[in-house]
């Protein structure tokens, strides 16, 4: 799965000239990059991070990194810039998840005492949003990055500084949990 979630609006907004100007550090062009990608970056960060505040901080860190590093961006065209910015955002979001070490406080946590005890037939019919938020931070990040954003397990393993097997097992755990909470959907 290599096709990243499309953000068609972005492509029309930025052209090669704007990208080159942004790479040269022109603030007006960097603002165009920000305007083009802020929605995409926040949407990703908000799904990976537990709180809106964390997602906002990730967005800020992402664009600061973009301002710092866009000069070394070697891709061509808005499409590759989209993938690059998204990769920066994913990295920042995963760094935040690792740094915060959120407590797995809810009773549905994979690592909690009730893990694996909830049979599908008594599954709570939780709203998908709620169910997603109740996943462990790592599982939520993996299922979102893999199933929605289209990153491979190799990509995720590299970004999380873990193994491919770890990414696969986290994805399976996420689906098992969601299956239990949402039942037959």
């Amino acid at each position: 799965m290599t096709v990243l979630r499309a953000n068609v609006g972005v492509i029309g907004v930025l052209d090669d000239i704007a990208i080159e100007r942004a790479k040269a550090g022109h603030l007006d062009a960097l603002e165009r990059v920000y305007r083009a990608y802020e929605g995409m970056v926040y949407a990703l960060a908000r799904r990976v991070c537990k709180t809106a505040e964390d997602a906002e901080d990730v967005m800020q860190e992402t664009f600061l990194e973009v301002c710092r590093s866009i000069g070394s961006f070697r891709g061509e065209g808005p499409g590759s810039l989209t993938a690059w910015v998204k990769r920066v955002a994913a990295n920042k979001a995963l760094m935040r998840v690792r740094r915060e070490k959120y407590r797995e406080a809810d009773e549905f946590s994979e690592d909690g005492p009730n893990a694996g005890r909830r049979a599908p037939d008594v599954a709570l019919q939780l709203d998908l949003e709620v169910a997603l938020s109740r996943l462990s931070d790592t599982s939520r990040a993996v299922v979102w990055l893999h199933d929605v954003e289209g990153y491979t397990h190799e990509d995720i393993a590299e970004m999380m500084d873990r193994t491919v097997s770890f990414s696969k097992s986290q994805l399976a755990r996420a689906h098992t949990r969601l299956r239990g909470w949402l039942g037959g959907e």
Partner: protein
Amino acid sequence: MHCTMDEMLAVRDGEGSARAKAHVEQCERCQVEMDLIARRAAALRALPVRRPPRDRWLVVRGQALAERRHARLARFGWGSVAVAAGLALAVGLRGVEFSGRDDRPAALVAEAAAGSAIDDLVAQSQQLEAALRAYGPDGRVMSGRAASLVAELEDRIALVDQGIARVRAVNGSREQLVNLWRDRVLLMEGLVNTHVTRASYVGF
């Protein structure tokens, strides 16, 4: 024996074993689970896109500009400060010699005092720059308001630096230099205070 979740996800992603693929093809229950996996992924992709609640561009812009200024300072700043101090000292010494030849002891005393004041202010400014560097503002996140204040202070410091350079270029009075360096120290104090009281550490 039915497929595990890992096996079904592998089959979905085109990485499943031959045994798992064969099993899914003939097992109605596993096919239902495969369908649920696909529907779950589709439902996740269909979740509404969340929009950022606030515009952070001004904060990002302020921090990016601050980083550029710090980088410039790291490359050229200390050299400029040293040159400024050296020039101020040279101007002071020349003034002392000139005043001495003119036999104007009062002026000589005033010039020497101004030179000493400049030295003190340059030293204070250096200490504040060092304190700010030691604090590590690049690794911290601040509110939009604080970032705007920082950007404004840094802009004013840049203007003062330009003023110092202009005064030096035209051999302006040491009184002007003293005033400019005094302004710079006050602005630097404001900058350090703003960073220390309004930023929070996030690390990298």
